[in-house]
């Protein structure tokens, strides 16, 4: 299978990439890892006139914390960079849980987190992780940079608010209020399949009290679902078996799964509640763990 004919540019700087995007007037796509874009082009679901390959732009392959705890993931940070970072579990537990579950090991050597967010696949894993973490995307255009909350970023399947002359340069996770905890669980039929159900949970604690909480759901709606309503129930409280149960039930109610070859609606709802309970129960003090 061949993609339709396109022109190709490999700029050496962000500014050059932005200029090329502007000149292409909406007919160009940005190529980072290419693990979703290239297959879509081969299947002719996408046929951009031009590809702007950002892989030669130096300084975009980073993921690190600022001194204040703000976490930044550059546009060329590959899934495998996150998967192999031994410090990630303590700094970003939800991201660390998700990284090894993205696609398969070989796809993870090329694919990027920022690229996944921009691809805006309703079944993407990173979108629910970033939505749980309250993350944002920084886009650079001809007039400078702007920050877009991940919750406002996606407008529909494979659609987002990026202007045609904007390049997403990094994803940002705000500094935690207190200590950060959380996880990501994904049910998939086999490695590399889309999630039947994916649940991202992020909790920030001051002492034992929850200061901030977020839940993102993958695969159980027409797009990523931010179950913020369920998560905020926990704010101001200590985690216990009762409130975990209530959050799990509410998250399952908020989800909008459809019955398909991956499972029935009822089964998927049940899995949402189960995953929320599993992730939160691990954060309980050891004396009161529930199933």
């Amino acid at each position, binding site marked *: *299978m*061949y*993609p*339709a*004919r*396109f*022109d*190709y540019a*490999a700029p050496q700087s962000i500014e050059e990439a932005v200029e090329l995007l502007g000149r292409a007037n909406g007919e160009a796509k940005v*190529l980072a890892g*290419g*693990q979703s874009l*290239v*297959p879509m*082009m*081969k*299947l002719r679901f996408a046929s951009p006139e031009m*590809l702007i*390959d950002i*892989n030669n732009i130096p300084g975009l392959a980073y993921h690190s914390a600022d001194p204040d705890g703000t976490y930044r993931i550059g546009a060329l940070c590959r899934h495998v960079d996150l998967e192999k970072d031994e410090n990630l579990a303590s700094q970003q537990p939800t991201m660390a849980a998700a990284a090894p579950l993205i*696609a*398969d*090991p*070989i*796809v993870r*050597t*090329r694919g990027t987190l920022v690229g996944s967010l921009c691809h805006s696949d309703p079944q993407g894993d990173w979108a629910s992780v970033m939505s749980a973490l309250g993350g944002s995307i920084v886009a650079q255009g001809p007039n400078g940079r702007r920050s877009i909350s991940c919750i406002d970023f996606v407008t529909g399947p494979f659609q987002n608010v990026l202007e045609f002359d904007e390049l997403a340069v990094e994803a940002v996770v705000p500094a935690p209020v207190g200590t950060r905890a959380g996880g990501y669980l994904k049910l998939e039929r086999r*490695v*590399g399949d889309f999630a039947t159900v994916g649940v991202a949970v992020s909790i920030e604690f001051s002492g034992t009290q929850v200061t901030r909480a977020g839940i993102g759901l993958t695969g159980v709606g027409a797009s990523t679902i931010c179950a913020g309503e369920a998560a905020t129930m926990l704010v101001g409280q200590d985690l216990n078996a009762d409130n975990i149960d209530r959050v799990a039930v509410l998250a399952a109610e908020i989800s909008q799964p459809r019955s398909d070859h991956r499972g029935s609606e009822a089964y998927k709802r049940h899995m949402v509640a189960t995953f929320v309970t599993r992730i939160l129960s691990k954060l309980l003090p050891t004396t009161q763990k529930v199933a």
Partner: protein
Amino acid sequence: MTSLFEVVSTESSVDTPIRRITVTVNGKQHTLDVEPRLLLAHLIRQGLELTGTHTGCDTTSCGACTVLIDGVPVKSCTMLAVQADGHDVTTVEGLASASELDPIQEGFRDEHGLQCGFCTPGMMLTAKALLDENPNPTEDEVRWALSGNLCRCTGYQNIVKSVLLAAEGLRAKDDVEEDEAS
């Protein structure tokens, strides 16, 4: 210099974009003119006639087309040939030397790690990347690393054994080389 224009297109047109790339495949440098839409898998198979790299699913699932780019496994059906410009590519043909098999190939031979052989090149290159990074993997680590490569002969059991045997072989070889050096 070879023109690979004909690999994707028989009609020539002034509108066809062409890029000149230099890529090192199994240690040999090639300078080639390619259309940007040429996939790396096709550059390797049709352009360089290295048909050990197989294209199976063509949709980034099966891993039969896996090659190493600067030592990192990549599905070559999902990478453009132009993106390999300036990089080192290793295909299955790059594993054996003229006189001896690579320990990974020996592992697959000794443990019967293949039936039809279609997935084998991808399996071996993924295994090579694993063993280069982790010379002493557990069985779980081998299974995890190979989870992006599909075998439809249901031969995973022997493939995993092959990689573990190869790891043993490589460690023994390293020990001998260290002894000789000291």
